[in-house]
């Protein structure tokens, strides 16, 4: 690229001597007039790279120039010309929308004469004009994100750096943000958009794919996706359990990767491999294999050498649960209010045994509030949350021993070692003597934790943290498993491994309730409840929800399309009509 705004050459950055480098020899360019995606799982080095571009970090080796200035040594010149929105948007929450804008206008030296025009333009652009007097802390996630963007845009920067702008934001706001960013790119601004959502990569003009500090790919996303063209198929018309079909398919030679997509199974094949015959993987007489358009994630997994196998050692160790026809988990009119704010309103659903049930929604929608009421961690203002017919709030320890719980961000004891965490949780769940030892040893073996046993949980790589958290949640072989945002930000391989375990456990009769804001993850669920602004706006299988919005405008809707359409149909589109959301996400 001749007109590159940013040139990075052999960048290396370490935090702490013992830790692996956050960036390891990255050479890349960022062009003007386009959206460059900085794509990769958490811990890949996205934020480090963005901060280096913003002159907020100095590289250890290599160099980085922005508009020809050395970003580390001439950072003042760089700061004059860039707009930067850090994670959490960099807003002063106790300042109003207008005061935030004014502050950024002043510190960026926007001439007073231009101010009125600039504010009008940005407020119109972001749709925030009616909310100028509202405190930033009282805005919804989507509105905060737009205000953050407006503040970063106040002087029309030539380079706009956005660090994970779409995390936890509802799909409508996410789409609006994309539209705005597209407009900016068309005006000639170079936009850098970092994200852990692989589906967002496809919307970028160019992508820098990072994994463990290394640049795996740089170029247009279609180029990477092209690697797997013709190698992606869907098994459709499956009779019986699609989880078993996936497991068997992943056992076939030549199948690199596979995921569940609603009632279908999606497979990525090795080069020159033939797709498996549906009947050989037990898909039933009517099943067919049809080609599917490749996705960025398929290609990423391919670059990483394929996904893990489909057999869960964990589930293999578990005993099958006795079958029962009764609903295992039930919510009846659950409502929770915090002061004047209703975090969850009249939430009702019932989950039969052996089902994966998902609560899907943006941050602040009320997922976690509902979830905590189900687990007995939060007292409902009204309504009932029942597990096995009893409320966990009142249930004795015995009933609680039947559930497993994996909290958001894997709440492990960070300063305890892996072994101590396992010992602690086995004790908490009342395992003793030989059973305890067997359970702990089994988890160490199953999750390959052996080499990390004496490491403290805080310094584990994200993937191992997640394994350890799952191990701690299931070592007592619960019949019901609650998972709160279980695979947020982890790499696709770890995510597949995780779902292999979950699928295996479900086949053994375990009932699973999961919250997520990942559309892809929701595809693994048998049924999902769409949660938006404290209410369930739809319940159904992923396919039913997609079917429900199919039309001329949307011939082949994705789950996100379905979510957006259902929100709009619900008459609750974004525009901030609701009161301040967000306290109790």
């Amino acid at each position, binding site marked *: 690229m001749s007109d590159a705004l940013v040139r990075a050459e052999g960048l290396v950055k370490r935090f702490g001597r013992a830790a692996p480098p956050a960036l390891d020899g990255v050479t890349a360019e960022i062009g003007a007039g386009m959206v460059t995606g900085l794509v990769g799982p958490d811990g890949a080095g996205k934020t480090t790279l963005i901060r280096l571009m913003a002159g*907020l*970090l100095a590289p250890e080796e290599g160099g980085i120039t922005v508009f020809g200035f050395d970003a580390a040594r001439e950072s003042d010149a760089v700061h004059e010309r860039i707009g930067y*929105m*850090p994670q*959490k948007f960099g807003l002063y929450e106790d300042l109003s929308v207008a005061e935030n804008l004014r502050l950024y206008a002043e510190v*960026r030296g926007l001439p007073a004469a231009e101010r009125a025009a600039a504010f009008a333009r940005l407020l119109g652009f972001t749709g925030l004009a009616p909310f100028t007097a509202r405190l930033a802390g009282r805005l919804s996630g989507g509105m905060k994100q737009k205000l953050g963007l407006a503040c970063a845009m106040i002087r029309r920067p030539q380079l706009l750096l956005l660090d994970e702008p779409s995390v936890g934001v509802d799909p409508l706001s996410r789409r609006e943000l994309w539209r705005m960013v597209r407009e900016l790119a068309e005006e000639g601004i170079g936009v850098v958009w970092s994200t852990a959502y692989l589906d967002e990569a496809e919307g970028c003009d160019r992508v820098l794919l990072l994994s463990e500090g290394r640049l795996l790919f740089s170029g247009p996303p279609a180029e990477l996706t092209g690697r797997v063209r013709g190698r992606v198929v869907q098994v459709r018309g499956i009779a019986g359990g699609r989880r078993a079909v996936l497991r068997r398919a992943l056992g076939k030679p030549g199948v690199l990767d596979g995921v569940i997509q609603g009632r279908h199974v999606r497979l990525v094949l090795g080069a020159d491999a033939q797709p498996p015959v549906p009947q050989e993987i037990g898909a039933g007489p009517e099943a067919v294999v049809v080609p599917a358009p490749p996705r960025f994630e398929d290609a990423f997994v391919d670059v990483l050498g394929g996904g893990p196998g489909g057999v869960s050692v964990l589930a293999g160790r578990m005993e099958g649960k006795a079958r029962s026809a009764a609903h295992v988990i039930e919510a009846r009119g659950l409502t929770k209010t915090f002061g004047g704010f209703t975090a969850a309103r009249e939430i009702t659903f019932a989950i039969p045994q052996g089902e994966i049930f998902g609560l899907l929604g943006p941050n602040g929608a009320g997922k976690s509030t509902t979830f905590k009421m189900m687990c007995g961690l939060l007292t409902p203002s009204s309504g009932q949350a029942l597990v096995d017919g009893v409320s966990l709030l009142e249930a004795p320890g015995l009933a609680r021993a039947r559930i497993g719980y994996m909290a958001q961000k894997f709440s492990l004891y960070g300063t305890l070692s892996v072994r101590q965490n396992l010992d602690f949780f086995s004790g908490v769940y009342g395992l003793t003597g030989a059973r305890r030892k067997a359970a702990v040893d089994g988890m160490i073996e199953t999750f390959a934790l052996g080499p990390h046993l004496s490491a403290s949980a805080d310094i584990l790589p994200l993937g191992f943290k997640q394994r350890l958290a799952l191990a701690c949640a299931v070592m007592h072989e619960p019949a019901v498993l609650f998972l709160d945002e279980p695979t947020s930000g982890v790499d696709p391989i770890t995510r597949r491994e995780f779902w292999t375990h979950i699928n295996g456990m479900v086949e053994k009769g375990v009932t699973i309730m999961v919250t997520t804001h990942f559309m892809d993850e929701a595809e693994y669920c048998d049924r999902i409840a769409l949660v938006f602004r404290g209410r369930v706006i739809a319940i159904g299988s992923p396919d039913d929800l997609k079917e429900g919005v199919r039309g001329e405008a949307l011939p082949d809707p994705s789950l996100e399309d379905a979510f957006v359409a259902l929100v709009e149909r619900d008459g609750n589109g974004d525009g901030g009509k609701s009161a301040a959301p967000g306290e109790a996400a």
Partner: protein
Amino acid sequence: MPPALRRLLAIMVKEGLQIVRDPSSILIGFILPVFLTLLSGFATNLDIKGVPIGLVLEDASPEAQSLAASFLATTAFKTRVGRDRREFAEDMVSGRVRGMVVIPQTFSRDLAQADESVPFQVIADGGEPNTATFVQNYAQGVWFAWMETRAREGGREFAMPVNLLPRTWFNEELLSLASLLPGGMAINLTLIGALLTALVVAREWERGTMEAMLATPVGRFEMLAGKIVPYFLLGMGALFICLWITLAVFGIPFRGSIPALMAVSAVFLLSALGLGLFISSAAKNQFVAAQSSILAAFLPAYFLSGYVFEPSGMPLPIRILSHAIAARYYVSCLKTLFLVGDEWSLLLPNMGGMAIIACVLLGLALKKTARRIA
């Protein structure tokens, strides 16, 4: 307006708005000074009154009765009279009385011999050494007064064992409040200056706003100065609240002038703000910042400033250490201003000490105020 000045003003305005809207700043800035001043005024009074003692009257002679009446008459003691020391034994153990005065059966006989020995016994509760000393001294005082009166009535001179004519300068009534309350103002300003500001930079790191600001043309001097000015004004406001309560509620005399007080306090506030900002920039985390500012600012100011405990009585290493505490100089200035007046020969060296500390701390804070994240 030059851009740097615009940026400085913008940050000051922002900081001011945050102070006004944050209930905790109002709490620490205005409510806490009132509370602390009232607390130190009412609770840390070192003057003793109404100490409960037991008076054991084993002798029923008129002389013994008359001495007992003297004990009952003084406000220093709350005296209960008994006939047997066993009556008070349990109260002594439980602390319901702080001492016993025993007037023995031999009292009137010993009194008649009238030598220099005191013919009665004082038993004090050594569990509270200060109070014990007080009980002993005051019991002796009552005895001397009684002897004097008796001698006068009998037309004789009573020869005191030692003739003491105490003459106290500056705090004539020896009111401990008159030196405690000015010292309390130093504690207040330390809290406002260091605790409040320790939180502000750390908060910006936690909320990610610091990162956003670092990516703008804001320089670290502007960042720092933009925070110092509003908190300086807040601290000055708190100073006058403390002053008003001290003068109006407790009626402590103030012999200095307001401009001198402001000058001295300004220098001190700068050092407190410097400490707070330095902690805050180094900690980047509100919890650690709050803990460190209590440890590094509040406790040294409390123990080493001379507010309650006089540093001259401390071991040499601690005395040396106390010179690194700005509050020490400030307490000394405040006592001077309240009890003596604008005595510049005393104020200036102390102001110099504070100014040096302020420069060092602000310099460190400026150095720690990052232009980069790591």
